């Protein structure tokens, strides 16, 4: 297979471009989007590459149509992605819930900018953490990843497709304007170097009859894609294992939604990814996600030089959230600081996880600039 960009070597590219290339290497062959800053370059790269790899890239009339189209494409058997920023992500929320309810593997990138509303289109922020986790209506469970470097943007995108296919779930990638437009050196592997997961298809007619059952006991039903003769009916209404609408039976709804929770939470150890930096002996922990992690690493070094036993916990997965791990951390350290580019969204999760075992302090910054290392260090020193 020929690729429209160099593989097996490093390149100096933007975060948006890295996501597009990773998607293609992960097997994505359907992209639908609507232009929005700072995610447009993902679309532009996809528009350039997709026809060359016999994939589809189409500009839809809005973000609602974009996510709808990728869900349709996924049921037709394609790995599919869309990318947007905060306002567009808000428009996608109804269909994001539809993807959760119908257990459709899709990848949605949200390159966050300052908000609410049109806010600061060209500036970074981390204001959509809660929207990514709880934006759609009703009880639901999905996966949210958060890269901090262009290399991570690439690597996490491949992982996002693999998780989406493996667990038949939408996966959200939360980046930000800084990451979207920053250029860094990225290693683009050869296709053989990449582990690519394909969705579980029905092994028999019997399995195909249960598109929303649990024939393998792992909570993830095989997906009978359209056109294979299985005659599957897919609905966003509460449905039983066969896919038949059963909207007035409480136990059917409970069984379905609890399984959608379970298939993610039972595998959370495999899904959750984090990195620790000088945390083993730390008395002060800094917990971050995304772009702020980069300043926080430097802040830890500065603090250590000043004699403060600081360490960093960087969350690569924002959701599901490892509350137990945070509680263990809170037992070990005196204080936890949460620098983030909003007025306290990750902070709420960390405080809940800490469960009163350690004091948790928010270092909030909004307006469109990433925290400087000194801003974080100074707050810790006090």
């Amino acid at each position, binding site marked *: 297979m*020929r690729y*429209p960009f160099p593989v097996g070597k490093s390149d100096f590219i933007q975060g948006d471009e890295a996501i597009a290339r990773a998607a293609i290497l992960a097997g994505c*062959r*359907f992209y*639908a989007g609507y232009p929005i800053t700072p995610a447009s370059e993902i679309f532009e790269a996809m528009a350039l590459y997709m*026809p*060359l790899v*016999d994939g*589809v890239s*189409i500009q*839809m*009339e*809005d973000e*609602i*149509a*974009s996510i*709808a*189209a*990728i*869900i*349709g*494409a*996924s*049921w*037709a*058997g*394609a790995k*599919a992605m869309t990318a947007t920023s905060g306002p567009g992500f808000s428009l996608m929320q*109804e*269909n994001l819930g*539809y993807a959760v309810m119908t257990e459709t593997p899709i990848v949605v990138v949200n390159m966050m900018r300052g908000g609410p509303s049109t806010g600061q289109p060209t500036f970074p922020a981390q204001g959509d953490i809660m929207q990514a986790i709880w934006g759609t209506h009703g009880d639901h469970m999905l996966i949210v990843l958060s890269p901090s470097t262009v290399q991570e943007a690439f690597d996490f995108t491949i992982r996002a497709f693999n998780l989406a296919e493996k667990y038949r779930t939408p996966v959200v990638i939360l980046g930000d304007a800084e990451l979207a437009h920053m250029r860094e050196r990225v290693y683009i592997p050869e296709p053989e170097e990449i582990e690519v997961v394909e969705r579980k298809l029905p092994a028999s007619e019997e399995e195909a009859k249960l598109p929303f059952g649990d024939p393998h006991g792992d909570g993830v039903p095989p997906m009978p894609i*359209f*056109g*294979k*003769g*299985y*005659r*599957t*009916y*897919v*609905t*966003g*209404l509460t449905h039983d294992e*066969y896919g*038949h*609408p059963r909207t007035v039976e409480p136990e059917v709804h409970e069984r379905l939604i609890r399984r959608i929770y379970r298939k993610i939470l039972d595998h959370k150890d495999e899904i959750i990814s984090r990195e620790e930096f000088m945390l083993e002996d730390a008395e002060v922990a800094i917990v971050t996600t995304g772009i702020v992690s980069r300043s926080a690493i430097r802040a830890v070094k500065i603090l250590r030089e000043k004699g403060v036993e600081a360490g960093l916990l960087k969350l690569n997965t924002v959701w599901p959230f490892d509350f137990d791990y945070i509680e263990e951390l809170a037992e070990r350290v005196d204080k936890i600081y949460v620098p983030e580019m909003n007025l306290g969204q990750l902070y709420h999760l960390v405080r809940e996880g800490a469960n009163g075992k350690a004091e948790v302090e928010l270092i909030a910054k909004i307006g469109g600039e990433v925290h400087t290392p000194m801003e974080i260090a100074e707050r810790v020193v006090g």
Partner: protein
Amino acid sequence: MYLKSAYEIRDKYLRKDMLPTIFCPGCGIGSVLQFTLRAIDDLKLNQDEIVWVSGIGCSSRVPGFVNFDGLHTTHGRALAFATGIKLANPNLKIIAFMGDGDAAAIGGNHLIHAIRRNLDVTVILINNFTYGMTGGQVAPTALKGLRGTTAPYGQFENPFDIAQLAVSAGANYVARWTVFNYLQGINSIKKALQKEGFTLVEFLSPCPISFGRRNRMKTAPELIRWYQKITVPLAKAKKMKPEELEGKIVIGEFVDRDRPGLVREYQEYIKRAKKMMGWEQ
């Protein structure tokens, strides 16, 4: 035309475990469903290569009752989902079963853009002037003066003429009938299913319970008589003055042309891209 018995059609195409349907007595959706299945049967189309897509509302429940692959989506978005299905697997034939509120109100933008792109899909549109499932609110197709729960004193807005809208936006085939024009209806669906690009067959369909009851036509026969009164065949309408056509709905075949469909256009686009990049001659 020889017509098979309704039982034969039912046994061949409906999911028996999903019956009975949710439709009220006197509703026209079942008739249109039957026309569509008869068209499929007559054309001997492969059941496994057709996907039914719908949005939300009474008519959008149809894909659940037929034994085909089906996607029952969110309100108004059927055609956006259909775009993904069709482009990801062009071998699938797509039928979008939609209501008037679904297609023309919340889904209006998707409708005009799907037509503009000439998406390869056949839209079967149930127009009953009302939001039936949510209890009889007024729809954007409702003629002036008709009542709904959200226009208790009679609709004061101008109605959409969906068929005319589809013609203007560039559809390859557009026809409108009442559910009582069954032969024309079946023939139109057959034509639509055989064409490339965007095709739309609109049916004026009775809804005695949510719509008729609020407009002094609480039974299907009353609605039939009313439809006979307000509809005018296209040939006759051409000879009528605009003031004579006031409050009337024209029925017939409005357009039948062969512009290239989206799938063909995209396949050409792929070839052009590879050529421009020097990948292929």
